[in-house]
């Protein structure tokens, strides 16, 4: 056998091999079984239709659809965020504890490849889960929107509304159906889960236990969700026209660097649920920001992990 060439600093192929193994591991751990109750929930939402539609407190069709989207997007966010934390927290400490990592790092595998591979693996599983949930959301929402459109058309025609108004009413309902904006909302949650996984990856490189990794990651997730509100409340109240001074600005920037601002992701998701206009440029900006966050956390993880002794 010929002697091997020198090992490159980073190899996408090796990272892909580790990612592939991570996907297999998570799939064989039967993580996708969690999708079954989620599917039941999404399908079950259909049966709430009659309950909300009847009676004096009946909701408008678009309100119903918004509620449907809110519930589904919320479930997707909760599942993917928790999954990102738990799976990342389990994988690396697990490899260290059972010494699988020894045999991997004793092959020509740079530590960066290992970290990136693990992260890619978790992200790939989140992507598959997100895709399945998204398909379910689109299917159920489509079914429900079509039903609402038929009801509304029939109702307005019966009451003799002019065709122009029927058309406007239909357009309003259709905007709450499975649109591109809704996909932006789903994508925002996916990006958020990627950032959370990268945070958990960083913590797992110096953490001594899975429990610590999970607890700290959840804490960062919560801080990230409320940090913009906290910053506004602590430093200055923009509602009162207050401008942050230099020190406040520096502290604010540091906080937003350490703790990702998840409010930005929520803003897109909320807009998607309300069927408001989300510009592709905004989405691209959020994707770019997520890539920066993930990149920073991976580099920090690598700094910690490259000097780690086993």
């Amino acid at each position, binding site marked *: *056998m010929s*002697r*091997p060439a*020198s*090992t490159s600093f980073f190899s996408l192929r*090796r990272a892909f*091999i*580790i990612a592939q*193994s991570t996907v*297999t*591991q998570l799939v*064989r*751990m039967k993580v996708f079984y969690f999708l079954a109750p989620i599917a039941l929930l999404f399908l079950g939402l259909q049966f709430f239709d009659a309950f909300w539609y009847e009676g004096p407190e009946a909701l408008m069709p678009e309100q119903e659809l918004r509620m449907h989207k809110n519930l589904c997007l919320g479930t997707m966010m909760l599942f993917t965020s928790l999954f990102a934390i738990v799976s990342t927290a389990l994988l690396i400490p697990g490899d260290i504890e*059972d*010494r*699988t990592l*020894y*045999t*991997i*790092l*004793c*092959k*020509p*595998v*740079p530590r960066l490849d290992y970290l990136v591979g693990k992260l890619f693996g978790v992200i790939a599983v989140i992507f598959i889960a997100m895709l399945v949930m998204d398909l379910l959301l689109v299917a159920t929402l489509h079914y429900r929107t079509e039903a609402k459109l038929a009801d509304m058309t029939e109702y307005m025609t019966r009451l003799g509304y002019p065709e122009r108004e029927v058309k406007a009413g239909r357009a309003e309902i259709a905007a709450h159906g499975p649109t591109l904006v809704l996909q932006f909302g789903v994508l925002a949650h996916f990006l958020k889960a990627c950032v959370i996984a990268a945070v958990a990856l960083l913590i797992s490189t110096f953490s001594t236990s899975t429990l610590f990794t999970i607890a700290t990651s959840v804490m960062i997730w919560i801080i990230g969700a409320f940090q913009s509100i906290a910053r506004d409340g602590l430093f200055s109240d923009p509602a009162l026209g207050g401008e942050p001074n230099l020190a406040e600005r520096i502290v604010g920037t540091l906080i937003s660097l350490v703790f990702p601002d998840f409010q930005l992701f929520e803003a897109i998701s909320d807009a998607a649920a309300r069927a408001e206009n989300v510009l592709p440029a905004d989405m691209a900006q959020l994707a770019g920001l997520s890539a920066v966050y993930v990149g920073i956390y991976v580099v920090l993880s690598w700094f910690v992990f490259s*000097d780690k*002794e*086993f």
Partner: protein
Amino acid sequence: MSDVAAVEVTNLVKDFKGPFRGKMVHAVKDVSLSIAPGEVYGLIGPNGSGKSTTMKAVLGLVAPTSGTCSIFGKDSSKVDSRSEVGFLPENPYFYKHLTAAETVRFYGRLCGMRGRALKDRIEEMLELVGLQDARDRRLKGFSKGMLQRIGLAQALVQDPRLVVLDEPTAGVDPTGSREIRDLILELKTRGVTVFLCSHLLEQVQEICDRVGIIHHGVLVNEGSLDDLISLEDKTELILGNPSPDLMEQIRSLVDVTHGAELVSEGRARTTLESLFLKETQGQRTGSTQILRARKSQKRATK
């Protein structure tokens, strides 16, 4: 053969910080050793003597406090040095969700192997360690001995020039232990350098060319096995079917020879391991025997 040492450890010192900034633990103190290509080197010592730390430093899993380690001239801390190393840790665990074949494939791919070459190598390795029948079984159902075998298969998958084995026969039954020993000897004949740590001194004695004894982090003795264990002033004589007359003559001769002394006399003994292997022969599907038979057959057809 290359002049570069397979393993070169120079003045290796490794200290670990105690908990809560407590006392420093000096795990390895100024250890230097050199393993020539093709040599089987055994590092022995009691628990906590620094064997595993030395091994981990050679493999780049721990960074030396001072001193250097290199593999075939390449700095151990660099990833490049691991291209030609196969490592079997003590009590190895692998991904339990993978099958035996998938495990070897995974490690082979990490070493840059692919395609037909990898496929053939997987089969070759599984045959070598006698796990062909378990190739599609997941590792979670494997016994300790089987895990050790799959560990050897992954260690050898990229055909490394150096194999590092930490307690390679821990938890393996005597027959399996013998097979692993035979495998190490086979590696030696193929020119592979073997660096092993073991508590089983008899095994080390049987397979190693050179031995280092480490105690409290210090390499207290090192040399070729013959030099280390031969007793300069004593000679052993084992006779087959000696008659009582012959024995009497020998005793008389010793008595009249100035300075000579008969230290002990008795029946030569086999080892418990040899007895065990003899008694259990044929009661186990000897995968290694099958393998040897196949190899002989292949050689004959060539």
